[in-house]
């Protein structure tokens, strides 16, 4: 009997000893959309290089990403390392869920801030700590029909707001049918309206980002400038008429469209072969002579959860993903634009005529206000009131006043917290 007991105890000791001795560290990585789908190819390379680390990738569709991350935080199941749209960083900062990366960056041989686009890097900086490393970048530039522009008598894309307005008028004059415009400004998107505002140095929010500042002269000017296109029917008001932007672009329904890098691929795929050479990209026009004008600093970063117990391995993974050779690989796989400027020197990127506008534009980008409420302000409120204003039923001044009121309501809590913090 004693023998059985002893061997049983021994068995337990041996088996528990086994489970304690890990052969490798497992890190959990969450990424979204097509990038998340394709990141596994890079993760396998990473594992080959670091046999002691295993990466578990969880791919989340964009539509559910925000909810999923928030719920993960609430249930304390955040992954070790994850992708975060750079406008979401402030929210996770407010939750105090992100590890500050400054210490890691200082010791890193791979990641050097000077190699990154300044405006993009800045979106990861909050209250003097760096919370994320840019993974891929995104901004908006002008897509235009070069053939229509030539037909209207112009050799180059617009460099100033006045150019844009003047060229739009001339292109409209080429129209033969009634249902034809020159500049497509989608009213179900907040981006164009914010974009022209920041070009004109509008602050968007004031007093430590605790009140709306949309009634400011700068924002009103930019907003009125855009509204002129709707009033003079240079831009379509009815979104229903542009169900398929590729078809509409090809048929000359409009000649200017401000959009992002994903549309380079889409335009090449979806436009008919006859359209080849009839469209181009250009940096955005500017309200003054300082061409190009600013655009929005978009994209996604890689961050480490503050609650992770495997931060060293997670950082190793981020470094691997940030290495120029891997960024180039990633561009080849999913055409995600690299945040590291040195990668852009490679022929694959440098020789793509549509990309040079993006490179120029990325050197002139500004972040949107870095507060957790921004997503809600932009996608719920700015969009709602831009749509209202575009109908021309309510004056710009009243619309912006209403927008400010709503934004002030959303920011009420933020004001209270700022006050609370001061008192402490």
């Amino acid at each position: 009997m004693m023998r059985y007991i002893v061997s049983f105890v021994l068995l337990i000791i041996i088996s528990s000893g086994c489970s304690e001795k890990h052969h490798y560290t497992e890190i959990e990585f969450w990424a979204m959309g097509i990038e998340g789908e394709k990141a596994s190819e890079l993760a396998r390379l990473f594992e080959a290089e670091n046999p002691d680390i295993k990466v578990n990738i969880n791919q989340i569709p964009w539509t559910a990403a925000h909810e999923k991350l928030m719920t993960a935080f609430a249930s304390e199941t955040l992954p070790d390392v994850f992708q975060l749209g750079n406008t979401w960083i402030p929210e996770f900062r407010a939750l105090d869920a992100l590890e500050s990366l400054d210490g890691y960056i200082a010791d890193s041989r791979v990641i050097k801030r000077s190699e990154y686009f300044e405006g993009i890097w800045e979106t990861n900086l909050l209250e003097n700590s760096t919370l994320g490393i840019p993974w891929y970048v995104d901004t908006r530039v002008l897509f235009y029909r070069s053939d229509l522009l030539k037909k209207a008598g112009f050799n180059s894309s617009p460099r100033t707001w006045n150019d844009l307005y003047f060229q739009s008028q001339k292109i409209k004059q080429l129209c033969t049918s009634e249902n034809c415009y020159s500049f497509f400004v989608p009213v179900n998107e907040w981006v164009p309206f914010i974009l022209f505002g920041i070009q004109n140095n509008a602050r968007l929010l004031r007093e430590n980002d605790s009140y709306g500042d949309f009634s400011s002269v700068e924002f009103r000017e930019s907003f009125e400038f855009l509204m002129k296109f709707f009033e003079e029917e240079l831009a379509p008001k009815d979104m229903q008429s542009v169900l398929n932007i590729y078809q509409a672009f090809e048929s000359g329904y409009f000649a200017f469209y401000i959009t992002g890098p994903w549309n380079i691929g889409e335009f090449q795929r979806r436009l008919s072969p006859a359209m080849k050479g009839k469209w181009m990209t250009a940096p955005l026009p500017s309200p003054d002579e300082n061409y190009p004008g600013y655009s929005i600093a978009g994209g996604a970063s890689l961050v480490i959860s503050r609650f992770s117990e495997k931060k060293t391995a997670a950082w190793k993974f981020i470094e691997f993903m940030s290495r120029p050779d891997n960024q180039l690989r990633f561009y080849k796989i999913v055409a995600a634009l690299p945040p590291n400027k040195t990668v852009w020197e490679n022929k694959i990127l440098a020789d793509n005529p549509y990309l040079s506008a993006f490179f120029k534009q990325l050197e002139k980008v500004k972040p949107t206000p870095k507060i957790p409420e921004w997503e809600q302000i932009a996608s719920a409120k700015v969009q709602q009131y831009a749509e209202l204003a575009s109908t021309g039923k309510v004056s710009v001044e009243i619309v912006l006043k209403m927008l400010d009121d709503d934004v002030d309501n959303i920011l009420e809590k933020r004001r209270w917290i700022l006050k609370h913090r001061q008192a402490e």
Partner: protein
Amino acid sequence: MRKKTSTIVLLIFFGPSLLVITVFFFIPVLASFIFSFTDFNIYSLGNLNYLRFIGIDNYSKILHEPLFWSALKNTFYFVLAGGPLSVAVSLGAAILLNSKLIRFKAFFRTIYFLPVVTTLVAVAIVWRFIYHPRFGMLNYFLGFIGISPVDWLGDPTFSMPAIILMAVWKNFGYNMIIFIAGLQNIPEELYEAASIEGAGAWSRFRHITLPMLAPATVFISVITMIGYFQLFSEPYIMTQGGPLNSTLSIVLYMYQEGFRWWNLGYSTAIAFTLFVIIFTGALIQFRIQKRYDI
């Protein structure tokens, strides 16, 4: 002595389920009721010191929010158009399947019941294909009778009817089964007697079938109303509340406020507002039932 035993027996039998329902139902409901008087949001999630009791502010905010009113309008549209339609279709199908002329009854019953047990998400995705403006089956068939393509889910005028159509198709099987059970309980003699007295098909339906089915109808309409007021998955998967918020339902609005913007205090207040609405609706239906002494 006997009394004590019965308490213990009661505890043994009811205890586990009472415990489960308390932990997973009553406590969360109570907690969310308390939440609805706070401004619990993303800041509070990070730090509980940033939680304030704000009384009924959430509720008054709801009443001043245009988005809530359009969500309410859309939900009522769905309930008032979809609810009766769903009941009528179920009744029609039940009467057809109960007819003596029909063969393969069990087969048809199963076929009509299939959508009920199919996962809603899968169904919604298939219906999105059906509604596709260019390649969808529905527009293809409409083309035969000369109707030009409709952008079912992209046009604010058609988006809600499209969702109602799908929901009715998905749900009518369940009510149909209840109606069939009700129909089979009607004594055959009543019809025979009426026929002898010279009653036609319509007056037999009007004066025998309908009154005899009244209890089933009340039950079905209350259940359908409660279910339809909680419209969520269909617009969540098919339209995300768009276009132009034309399919934003109250529950979807609550979900967006709660899990997209993380305004949990506000969104629980929406939940209790919806509870009051449904409760009132059910009360009205029971009143009607009493009034007509069904």
